[in-house]
């Protein structure tokens, strides 16, 4: 039977309900309607749902602003009863231009984060609204920045193949879990991979996510930040699968190794050109059906698919197994591209070097990072030529 741990009012066993649920408002509901709620003097005032919301809001204290995204501001916060328990409060901005009610990004983020519970996916601890009916998402606080910061800080942060393997392992498990639950993330990129105090990488920002249970439903191809967007979306495919996320994962992998975005196109056309140069030109031979996609156009002359040697030359520090995995994530034809489950079964994970333990992973410089430790680490994977390339691209990071 599908009886949930929801507790009947009166026989309330709060602790049982809390441990079963990551949503703290379960506790509120199990307390059921409080008499006070009914005695509210103003009919428009506190009804039950509002009372529950108020209780939830009261649990947190909002502090300084941590950052700003396109559709939300993020604040530091803490539990009222336990000031040392920090949280991030993501307050969804009211979008004046959007006149159709609750914005789609907020709906998607809520819908999916409420369901997904995994160590490598940011946890949603609670949701409440402030008095102006702004939505506030209480998220776990992830103080150590994101992967983009680490990649870009070439002088301050050195890391090696074992570290990359650890980060990639966490990213791959996150995306595997999404796909197992029929969720596409559709915006994987280094700055959506946040880092917890213990070094754990967490996939965040589900504002573009959607379920993909029905293979016949049409979906928009206008998703995923351009540099990480797979060829099928650039060609306007309306039916696609988890393979779109895998391509992005592959590009995060490539970027971790070379410490600069691998294919940083300025426009969609440019992005297609870069793919044709770096991977090879998609055609009916390597990808049956591709020429039927609505926006299929490729530059002349076509390039053959790059061979293993090319990848070994550019990404050799990842080792031959790493290169093999990378190549499989960047297969042009989405049907032939490796899946998240197959990625997890790849032999790279068990080949040397072993992934670094998360507590020992390099951290962003300044703040908590200990310079001495960084210096003791084996030299990073950069050579002069690559750092020069990074330097030219440094200010690309702020792209939205």
């Amino acid at each position, binding site marked *: 039977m599908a009886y949930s*741990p929801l507790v009947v009012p009166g026989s309330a066993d709060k602790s049982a309900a809390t441990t079963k649920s990551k949503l703290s408002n379960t506790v509120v509901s199990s307390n059921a309607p409080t008499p006070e709620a009914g005695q509210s003097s103003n009919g428009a005032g506190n009804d039950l749902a509002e009372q529950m919301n108020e209780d939830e809001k009261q649990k947190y204290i909002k502090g300084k602003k941590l950052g700003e995204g396109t559709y939300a501001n993020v604040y530091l916060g803490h539990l009222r009863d336990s000031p040392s328990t920090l949280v991030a409060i993501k307050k969804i901005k009211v979008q004046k231009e959007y006149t159709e009610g609750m914005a789609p990004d907020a709906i998607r983020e809520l819908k999916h984060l409420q369901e997904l519970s995994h160590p490598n996916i940011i946890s949603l601890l609670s949701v409440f609204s402030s008095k102006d009916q702004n939505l506030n998402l209480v998220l776990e606080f992830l103080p150590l920045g994101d992967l983009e910061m680490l990649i870009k800080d070439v002088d301050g942060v050195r890391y090696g193949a074992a570290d990359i393997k650890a980060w990639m392992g966490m990213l791959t498990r996150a995306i595997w879990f999404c796909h197992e639950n029929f969720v596409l993330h559709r915006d994987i990129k280094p700055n959506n991979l946040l880092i917890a105090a213990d070094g754990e990488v967490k996939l965040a920002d589900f504002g573009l996510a959607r379920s993909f249970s029905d293979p016949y439903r049409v979906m928009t191809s206008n998703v995923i930040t351009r540099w990480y967007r797979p060829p099928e979306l650039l060609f306007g495919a309306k039916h696609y699968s988890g393979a779109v996320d895998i391509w992005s994962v592959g590009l995060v992998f490539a970027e971790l190794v070379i410490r600069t975005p691998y294919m940083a196109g300025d426009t969609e056309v440019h992005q297609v050109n870069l793919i044709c140069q770096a991977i090879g030109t998609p055609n009916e031979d390597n990808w049956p059906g591709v020429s039927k996609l609505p926006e299929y156009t490729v530059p002349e002359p076509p390039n053959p698919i790059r061979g293993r040697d090319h990848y070994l030359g550019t990404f050799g520090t990842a080792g031959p197994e790493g290169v093999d995995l990378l190549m499989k994530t960047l297969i042009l034809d989405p049907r032939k591209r490796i899946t998240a489950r197959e990625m997890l079964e790849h032999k790279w994970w068990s080949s040397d070097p072993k992934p670094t333990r998360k507590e020992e992973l390099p951290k962003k410089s300044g703040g908590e990072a200990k310079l001495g430790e960084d210096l003791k680490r084996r030299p990073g994977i950069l050579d002069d030529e690559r750092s020069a390339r990074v330097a030219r691209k440094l200010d690309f990071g702020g792209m939205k």
Partner: protein
Amino acid sequence: MTSTGPLNEDDRYRTSTQYRLWSFTPQSLHTFRTTTNQLAAERVREAVRRAREARSADDASGTDSRSASAVPEGEVDCLTVEEELKLIAFYCRQTLQLGDHLKVPTEVKATAIQYIKRFYITNSVMTYYPPDILKTALFFATKTENHYFRLTKFAEAMSKTKPEDILASEFLLTQGLRFTFDVRHPFRALEGAVMEMNAMASGEIDGPALKGMGRKVMMAHGKAREYLKTSALLTDVYFHYTPSQIMIASLMIADRELIQLYISTKIPSDHPSSPDLQAKILETLEQCAEMLKTVEPSADPAPAEKKEISALGKKLKKCRNPDMIDLVGLQRAKREGEEGLDEKVVKKRKLEREQSAKEGEDLFGPSLKK
């Protein structure tokens, strides 16, 4: 694709909000609904008392007493839990019709109805008028199920409905849903089971018990789908059973013999506890099927039932919470904070609200534009 069979509920289902927040024992569900009903009734009586006081004050000072026109005379006769449930069921059917009218996919209608049913666990129809809530729920479901519908187009398809009417209760709805929007339906599970049974029937995969039963499978599929599209939505089965249980129960109603054979292929007969296990599974499915059968898919409500609903609608009109009639006004006030407004605006809006309150009393709610 899935590693666990349809009888072996996916562990993952247990992490879903549908299981964690929206599954109940029949007793606990009843307790919630009773509390909600009693609370709402108290508030209605209280609000009516206040409105009457205000009216007699107005009468005494000889001012315009229109504000209390919606307040009935005499003791307020509030709805019981059972009466509320009948009305909710009626409005859920209306939601199906509205969805058909707007040609939205089954998932959108199904999700909207679960939103309505979830919302009314902690909210009473006396407080929030179902004809308002159902439009909002259907519109919101188009968003959560990725079937975007322009708000203006959506409103235009219904009579006497402005876009702001639909948005006025959106936030209220999401709050009542406790900001959980994902609903797990049994439709996909049905397609999976049917595919498997077909493969067994044709001998493609092992399952000799079903060999040659392709036609039976096809018939059962059609009938089960009807149950899932109506009975499963209009009863409480989503609150008590998993999507797979609902799916199998609907197949069982369609063709008991076939489904028992199918179930037997899922439980290895050499398993020591096989008979016990099978009996236990069957018992649960039986209960689920009984609940499904309380609402037949095709049958229109009987004349007696229609009469009863109409009477309940009249009763509801007399016990609606007068403070909660104008949701558009309340919503606007909440967004802006009433203080900032000058008196003229407040007065004008009050008049508008009274007007809309009168118009909004059509029991049959959003009549459809043909």
